[in-house]
C-alpha cells in the first residue's frame, strides 16, 4: 500500500490477518495502526468509533476472541490471527437487526448514536457469559462506556431486556437450565 510522506514506509508496514465479523480480512498497512484504525481504514469496518484515545469512553469497544477491548489501545499487529466482532457482527445472517440491537431500538437506547456501537459490544460481552446480573451490576459493567445523550436509563433497560430474553430463549447460547436453578 502507498505511504505518502514516509520515506521508509515499507520497513514499517506489516501484514495482518483477522477474522472480522466472520469474514477473513487481511491487509498490509503501517505497523503503528491501532486495531481501531486498521478496522476502519484497512478493513472498511466503520462501526467502532474513535472517541478519546485513552480507553475511557468505550466508543471503540470490540470483542477480540470474545473479550471486550478498547480497539484504540491495541495495535492490530498485536491481535494478528484473532477473531474480532464489532457491532455490525451482531446482525442476523440476513442482515436484519440481532436481538441486542432490537432491544436498543425498542428501548430508544440510542440518540446521537456515537456511543452505540461500543455500548452494544459491552453488552455483548455480558450476554456472552450468560450470567444473571442485577440492574446495578449492568450499570457497573457499563461504566467504561460514556453516553452524553440518553442519561443511560434506556441503555440499561435495553441490556436488561436483552439479557432476560437470552436467558429465556432455549435457542440462544447460555447456561443450561440446571445452572439457573442452582444459582437461585
Amino acid at each position, binding site marked *: 500500500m502507498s505511504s505518502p510522506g514516509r520515506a521508509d514506509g515499507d520497513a*514499517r508496514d506489516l501484514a495482518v490477518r483477522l477474522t472480522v465479523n466472520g469474514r477473513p480480512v487481511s491487509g498490509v498497512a503501517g505497523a503503528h495502526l*491501532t486495531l481501531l484504525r486498521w478496522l476502519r481504514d484497512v478493513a472498511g469496518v466503520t462501526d467502532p468509533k474513535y472517541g478519546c*484515545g485513552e*480507553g475511557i469512553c468505550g466508543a471503540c469497544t470490540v470483542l477480540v476472541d470474545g*473479550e471486550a477491548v*478498547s480497539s*484504540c489501545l491495541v*495495535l492490530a499487529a498485536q491481535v494478528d490471527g484473532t477473531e474480532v466482532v464489532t457491532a455490525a457482527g451482531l446482525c442476523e445472517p440476513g442482515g436484519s437487526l440481532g436481538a441486542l440491537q432490537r432491544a436498543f431500538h425498542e428501548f430508544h437506547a440510542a440518540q446521537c448514536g456515537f456511543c452505540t456501537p461500543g455500548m452494544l459490544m459491552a453488552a455483548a460481552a455480558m450476554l456472552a457469559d450468560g450470567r444473571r446480573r442485577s440492574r446495578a451490576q449492568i450499570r457497573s459493567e457499563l461504566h467504561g462506556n460514556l453516553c452524553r445523550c440518553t442519561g443511560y436509563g434506556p441503555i440499561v433497560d435495553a441490556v436488561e431486556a436483552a439479557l432476560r430474553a437470552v436467558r429465556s430463549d432455549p435457542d440462544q447460547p447460555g447456561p443450561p437450565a440446571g445452572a439457573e436453578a442452582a444459582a437461585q
Partner: protein
Amino acid sequence: MFTRPFRYERAERLAEASDLLRQHGEDAKVIAGGQSLMPLINLGLAAPQVVIDISRAEQSGGSRAIGSDDGYLTVGALVTHARLAADPVAGQAQPLLGAAAARIGNSRVRNRGTLGGSLAHSDPAAELPLAMVTVGAEYEVSNGNRARSVRAEEFHLGFLTTPLEADELIVSARVPSLGPGWGWAFEEFSRRDGDFALAAAAALIRSSAGVIVEARVAVGGVSDRPVRLADVEIALSGATMREAADRVGAVRGISPVSDTGASAAYRAHLARVLVRRAVTEAGRRSETADV
C-alpha cells in the same frame, strides 16, 4: 489517533525483548497490554521509533503463571488484571492483590492490562504498586542474561520512575502469603468509577484476642509513589479494633498535589479517611481470619 509511524517487533521470549532493547536503546518502548503506553502514543505524549511487543511472548520464568508455594504467591508479569482479580489461588494466598486489580480502570483495561506493565509504568495513583508496597513484594527483574530481585518499596522511586535498566523487564512479583490471623483491606476514592484514584489506602493487620499485633499500611495517589505509613503502623500496635481508626493521626510523609481532580488539602483529607476505613476493615477481617 494519527500517530507517528513506528516499527513493530514481536518478541517471542522476554530475553529477545531485552536484546531488542539493547539494539534500539532509547528509541524503543515495550508494549504488553498497552493500556498505559497506547494512550500516551495516541495523545502524542510518547513517540517511539520501535515498539517491542511482549504480549505474545511464551512463558519464561513464570511470566504467565500464578502459583502459591512455601508461603509465597508468585504472579507473572504478563498476567492480566482481570485474571489476577478472578484467580482463586491468588485470592486464597493474598486477597489484597485481586481486590486492587479489580479496582483498575474498566473491564476493557483489565482484560488487556498486565501486572508487569502497571508496575513498570509506576503511576503514583495506580492500584497494583500500592498493593505491592503494602504486602512487601519483591519483583524479579531480568535482562535475559542476569536476573535480580528488587523490593517494591525500592522499585517505585517517583513519578513514572523505577530502577529498571534500559534492557530489563519485570518477569514476576513474589509476595508473602497472608498468614493466619491477618486481615486485609483496599480502599480508594475516585470521582467516577474507573477514574484514577484521587487517593487510595491499603492495610494488612494481624490481631490476636482482639488486639492489633502488627500492621502494614500504605497510601497511593497522594505522593509521587506509594508511601508506607510507619507512624500509623506503630500507633496501631497494641490497639483494640475499636480504637484502631482513632489511632490514625495525621498522615505524614506524603506530598499531594492540586490539579483539576482535587486540591492537595482534599487529597490529604481523603488519605486519612481512607486509611481509617482500611485499618477498620482489615482489623475486622483479622478477627474472623483463621488463626
